């Protein structure tokens, strides 16, 4: 098995598009976000609960495509950034709204919509509360199509759209505004500010017009997450075969076997290496990860590599297994979901070769 050079998922049809986010759709997106987290990105459960509460109070949130927005209408991206342990334990409050307010004041213009910066993991639904609070829709797109650890690992950055100006805010109301910074510097400044904000913060960034963003984002990612989540739930409930899920995600099964060892191998950057063996054939899986699964080899052949999404599933329950949920002896099915074609079109696979630290 080798990676097809021009692999890509089929574009979502108009009929598959989400038009609004209700409680059921939120659950689907949350489960799909676990899939698209590629083993990382954090758990979407907390922000999904917050989104359900928001939708329960104010009704379904409209979901729009970039094409539905006015050319000059500004779209802002939202993310929770910082230490994963803090993000896991600290409940979000109104920090995204505070950051958005700060950026709106700085720019002197209100956004026509918000979007999540990354669809993989906990950030998939981060834009819902702030969009509901400002009464604007959310965009069916993100900047990654999966989970990544840095704010500059986006298709917008590849297109030359800067992250700055951006605003950061903590739940206590402290906020920071960064007026200008290039891509690499924006990440550095953000990391420098985080300790003062309690180790984690809401970020509102990549403010750009809809016209400029067209072709520079992963289009339809919210719908994709919802579709994946919807089918996966049916598979987990034994109401649909796994094949349905594979078809929905254009996924390829790479390996099935038992985890034999999880170890940290330091070579420049610390890398977690997962070794699993297929007892029937003897095939050996090597799964390398820093914050997310980055590359999968079976018997020495690279079968998946970021920005592909690599998914580990427990074959007993079809639960998606995150990197920190792996343990020796766990039976796994490893899948490859091809990266969004936008990554390849923008040369992103090459650009992602650098060090990545969340």
């Amino acid at each position: 098995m080798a990676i097809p050079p021009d692999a890509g998922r089929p574009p979502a049809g108009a009929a598959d598009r989400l038009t609004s986010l209700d409680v059921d759709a939120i659950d689907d997106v949350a489960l799909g976000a676990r899939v698209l987290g590629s083993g990382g990105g954090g758990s979407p459960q907390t922000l999904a609960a917050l989104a359900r509460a928001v939708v329960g109070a104010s009704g379904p949130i409209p979901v729009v495509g970039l094409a539905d927005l006015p050319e000059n209408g500004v779209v802002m991206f939202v993310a929770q950034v910082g230490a994963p342990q803090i993000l896991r334990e600290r409940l979000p409050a109104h920090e995204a709204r505070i950051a958005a307010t700060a950026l709106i004041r700085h720019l002197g213009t209100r956004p026509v919509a918000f979007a999540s910066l990354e669809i993989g993991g906990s950030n998939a639904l981060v834009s819902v509360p702030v969009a509901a609070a400002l009464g604007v829709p959310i965009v069916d797109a993100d900047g990654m199509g999966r989970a990544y650890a840095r704010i500059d690992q986006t298709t917008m950055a590849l297109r030359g759209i800067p992250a700055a100006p951006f605003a950061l805010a903590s739940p206590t109301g402290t906020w920071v505004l960064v007026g200008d910074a290039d891509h690499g510097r924006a990440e550095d400044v953000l990391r420098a500010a985080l300790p003062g904000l309690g180790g984690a913060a809401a970020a509102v960034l990549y403010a750009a017009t809809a016209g400029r963003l067209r072709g520079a984002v992963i289009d339809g990612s919210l719908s994709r997450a919802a579709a994946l989540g919807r089918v996966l739930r049916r598979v987990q409930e034994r109401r649909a075969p796994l094949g349905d899920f594979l078809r929905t995600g254009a996924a390829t099964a790479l390996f099935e076997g038992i985890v034999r060892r999880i170890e940290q191998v330091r070579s420049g950057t610390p890398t977690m290496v997962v070794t699993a063996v297929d007892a029937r054939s003897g095939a050996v899986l090597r799964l390398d990860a820093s914050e997310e699964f980055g590359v999968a080899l079976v018997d020495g052949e690279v079968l998946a590599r970021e920005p592909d999404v690599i998914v580990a599933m427990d074959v007993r329950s079809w639960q998606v297994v995150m990197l920190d949920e792996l343990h020796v002896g766990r039976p796994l099915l490893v899948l490859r979901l091809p990266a969004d074609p936008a990554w390849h079109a923008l040369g992103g696979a090459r650009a992602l070769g650098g060090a990545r630290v969340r």
Partner: protein
Amino acid sequence: MDSWPLTVTVRDLLALPDMADVPVVAHDDDLDRAVGDVRVLDRARLAAAPGEPPPNGAVGGLAVVDCADGGPGALAGTDVDVALRAAARERAHALVAVGAPRLAEATRVLALRLGVPLLVLPRARATSAISEMMLQVRSPRVRHAEVVCAVADRLGRAPREPTAVLDIVANALQGVVQLQSGSRIVHAARSRPHDPAADPGATTVPTVVPLGEVRAPFTDVINGRGTAVLPIRTPDPTSGQLVLVAANRRGGPAWRSMALDALTVAQHPVAAWLGFERLSEERRRHAASAVLDEIAAAGGQLSAQALALALQLGWQPRGWHLALFVRPVSDAPLDLGEMAALEEELRSAGLPVEGLVPRAGGAAGWMTAGSSDGLPTVAATVRGVRAAIAELTGRGEPGDVVVGVGSARSGADGLLRSIDDARRSALLASPYLDQDRVRAHSGHSVERVLASWSGDDLARREAAALLGPVAGTPSEETLRTYLDLMCSVSATATSLGVHRNTVMNRLRRVQDDLRLDLADPATRLALQLALRTAPSDRR
């Protein structure tokens, strides 16, 4: 001696100086595959399609891959896995990964699964190691000659002590080299590893190589280690067999052949040293014997000169002494090797015996303390001697001996008397393997009478002549048992586990062969005395 090897195996490459301690992941059998060439596995080959045939000359080669440059989009570490797959596809017999990071479990499992031995070479050593490997693979004769000549050159300039000689050879061969006498290691040396923490077992620890009688040099794989064995011709033909042994867990056929030639070069200084050592040892032991003679000649008195000589030898003649006397069953004197081996075992058994001193009929040794309480008891000494003899007998050395243990006595005169007690006890100790070969002094008159008889050379010769026709036969054993068991045929049959008619037949044969009548009491007495003293091989 082996002919020149036509092939070089992966194991041979691992024995090279720059490779000796590099980590290896492989099934042991896979290390014995021949290596035809060394070549670099470049990026194009790594990325070749699975069905693409290997380039000419690639099959059976040693593939080398540089893992430092991960390449665009690659995560460090996975390159080794990719290279292993490429090496397997190209049917390489091993992969050398230069500068690879610490191997992940997946990489190790993959190397074993694909059957491609994986050698992880530090970057700092890459150039020299790869050039060494190329020389070994492409010109094994040159490499062979290079090492053997280097050994000869260094031996020509080095001190001739065996430890220095063995050290030179061990470092040249990157293995362990030892001088072995029977099942005892006399001297050993190990090569110095590049990085002792990397793989401390890479060469070999000195371990006794189980050898029978070695008539000619040979090489083999012994206990999983490539081994070369060379018997040494010593100046003294009576000394036990000495062999030089070189071993390396990673020594393939080329290494073994090279090791044997290096040992051949090294044997001459070792043999010369052994001859010199033997002369010195003989001089020392005979000087000690002369001091005992001088004390005896002075009637047990210690002259100033004798005292000076005794102190020079490290003795404390005025202390308390407990002596042993070692008597060879045959009339052949104990040689130096046997004495040294016995001394070592006695000390291992907790008996701090001074060096054995040659005396008429055997060798004497003793323990000295400031008071009698400081000496081991006679019973503890007997137990220790039994343990030492059992250990030596188990290893097939030394020659057949019995040991007498004297009584504790003080002063120079006491030393002589303790030795004499031990000597008389040794004369009465049974020479038969199935009986106790250690006897303690009892001081009883019977012992003195029997010792007088056993110690008389003429009596010993007559006894041997008397028993000659039945010596070493079942009839001799039957006769001894019969006489020891008060001439009871039934008891003899029970003791030997044979039918009483068999005993009767054997005794009849003894009478026929010796032309004697066992009904005569004087005949029985003479035969019993003869059986206790005859210096024949009683095995």
